[in-house]
């Protein structure tokens, strides 16, 4: 998956981080790490 494909699949406002019971939109740094994880993913 390319970076652009990952962003299209998961727009920033659609991905969340949860800490305890608090669910929030990701920070830019968290979102970049998430997108990169999608790009780097290799199915096992």
């Amino acid at each position, binding site marked *: 998956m390319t970076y652009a494909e990952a962003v299209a699949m998961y727009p920033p406002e659609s991905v969340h981080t*949860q800490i305890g019971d608090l669910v929030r939109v990701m920070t830019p740094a968290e979102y970049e790490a998430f997108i990169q*994880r999608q790009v780097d993913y290799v199915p096992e």
Partner: protein
Amino acid sequence: MAITTYTAGEILTAASLNNNFASGGLQFISATTIGTTVASVTVSAAFSTTYDNYKIVVSGGTNSTDNVVLALQLGATVTGYYATYTGVTYSTAAALLAADNNAANFARPGNAKTNGLFLNIDLISPFLAKNTFFNAGATVSNTSTRLCAGYLDNTTSYTAFTLTPAFGTMTGGTVRVYGYTNS
């Protein structure tokens, strides 16, 4: 503490009953419901001085992409994770081997599928100033079953952990934490 046994007609005191409750093997600590389209979930205040060893069970919910591994990270530590995963692929009966070698987390102790999230892991001494060991028994995917164990090579005391699917986001499901009674 040893469990008290009773005879017929004996008066049951609160102290004795409470002692028995506290003497059981697994003690429930917390349940966290996973939200909607969550890329990672952190459970805080999971580990404490009360217990040395813990069980974490994740069930229910869904992952946006089927059949990906579910990783576990302790605290904010992103180095020093060592583990092996030995399994067999259903279709060919071929051996399937994987390892975490000074990795950023325990990469494969659980499984995230479109029909559920699956994790059953024992953690040994995450709060103590010792290495943290894990044994997750088996991780079962669409293609293989694996046995796994490993350790985190530091002596940091942890109170929290984070679960992250390798791909996609989670919705729903519950993260339950239990403590093994020290006795």
